[in-house]
Structures are given as C-alpha cells and as structure tokens.
C-alpha cells in the first residue's frame, strides 16, 4: 500500500476543483444575481439586472446601476427623498419617489436579507 493516491484520483481532484472554481467565477461574474424591480404606480415596468452597469429614465426620474447597486440619481421632485435614499444593494431594500410614484425594490438571492437602512 505504498501508493495510496493514484493518477486517477489526482485527475478527479483537479477536475472537481476546476469545476468548482469555474462555477464560482461564472456565478460571481453574473453579479450577485439580484434584480432591481422598478414599479410605477405599483405596476412593474422594468426589471434591471444589477450585474450590468447602466443609466436609464423612468418617467421624470433617472436611475443608475453601478457595481451591483442601484440608486435614484436625478428627479424633478421637490424633496429629493429618493436620491437621498442612496445606493440599494441587498435584497429586500427599496426606495421610492412618491411624487413621481416610482419605486425600486431589490429582489433576488434573498439568502441573506439584512437591514441596511431604516427610513425615518
């Protein structure tokens, strides 16, 4: 029993590690898998993949996706509450521009929901 490890074992080990590494890289490359759901008047108008950086308009507000997070960056509303809500990243968090009736909610992994901001 001098040769506990055989060639086939080493090949299997390398294959498994490679498969795992490839899978992890692919999955993380596709962003966190989270999706931002944009609603106007409570109706879903757009679903945005947070893995793709972009800027887009919904009515009179402008939203930006960057580094897996989304934020209101421009709006014609008086208080700019939506812009002050900042960047949304974790599943479950949301922000809204009430005058324009636009809301954004992050949905997705749901694996680790955490409270990141508390509205006051």
């Amino acid at each position: 029993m001098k040769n506990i490890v055989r060639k086939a074992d080493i090949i299997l080990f390398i294959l498994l590690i490679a498969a795992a590494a490839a899978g992890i890289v692919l999955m993380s490359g596709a962003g966190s898998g989270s999706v931002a759901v944009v609603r106007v008047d409570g109706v879903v108008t757009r679903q945005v993949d947070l893995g793709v950086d972009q800027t887009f308009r919904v009515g009179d507000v402008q939203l930006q996706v960057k580094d897996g997070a989304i934020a209101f960056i421009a709006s014609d509303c008086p208080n700019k509450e939506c812009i002050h809500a900042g960047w949304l990243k974790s599943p479950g968090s949301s922000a809204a521009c009430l005058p324009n009736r636009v809301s954004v909610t992050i949905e997705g992994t749901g694996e680790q929901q955490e409270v990141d901001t508390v509205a006051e």
Partner: protein
Amino acid sequence: MRSNFSARRIATLGALLAISLVLSIVESMLGALVPLPIPGVKLGLANIVFMFILVYFSLPSALVIAVLRTFLAALLTGGLSMFLFSAPGAILSILLMWVAMRFVPPLSLVGVSMACAVAHNLAQVCVAVLITGEVNLFYYAFVLIAVGAVSGSITGIVAGATFGRAAGALRIKEQAPHILQSNQGGAR
C-alpha cells in the same frame, strides 16, 4: 468470514459500528475546535469505517451498520428527526461508494471517498433547495464541490493509510478487497 452470521463477523461489525460512532464524536469536537466560515462542512470521518466495511465485508453489511449508526447517533445527540434526515444521506453515500469502487476501477480509496463526498454535498444542496425553495442556494453547490474534494481526499488518504493495518488488527482475512488488489497490481 465464511458464514454470514459467524460470531466473529458480528463482533467485528459491532466494533466497527462503535468506531464509527466515536469518529462522529471526534468530528464534532474538531468542528468546535476549528470553526469554519462555511456551514455544513464536515470531514466525514465515519465514511472511513463504511469504506472499510465495503472493502472487507459487503454492501448489505455496510448499509445495516450505517443505518444503525445514524439511529444511535440520533439517540445520543439529536432526535428522531435527525435520524430521518441523515439516514437517507448515509445510505446514498454508501451506495455511491459501492458504485465507484465497483465500476470505476482506476480510482483508489482516495478517489472513491472524494467522489462520494462531493456527491453527498450536492445531494445536501438539492435537499436544501427543495425544502427552502431558494434556487440561489445552487450557487453554494460550487463551494461544496471544492469542499467535498478536499475533505474526501483527506478521509481517503487516512483510509488508504490505515486499512491494511486495521484489517490485520481485526484479524480479517482479505475477502475480496479488489480496490486494494488492483492498487498493488497496477502501481507496483
């Protein structure tokens, strides 16, 4: 080892059952000693015993001992629900080990236990997805593939290093340890 129910065979299997229980206690102590950031990661030391039974005894013996082990472990630690959860996993992993030993002859004990650990981890993820309905848990599967490869090779190396001696200590005449025979034939 002629008769299926010789006193020696029953006594030996009983001792192996006790060893597998001790190994799972040792494993839980190791887990408390070295807390890992990933939940559900275990070395699977008890699998060494089941591999041993598969090599020197038979598939039915291994299955019986495995079910008894999960039952006793449930009595010692958790409860009946733990038995219901872990018994299918134990049976599945032993069947996988048997298939790997039987039909993938180039693999040694190391490869067999690696394949078994990975398959067991993947099955665990599938069950978790079924129970929680959270498809994103599949992401975790890739982490568990790597974990299974590492933990499986560790237990496999321990198995390969100890089986000959353990068989000698238990006075087991090698019945049909094809996985060891082909090793000697192929590698030397």
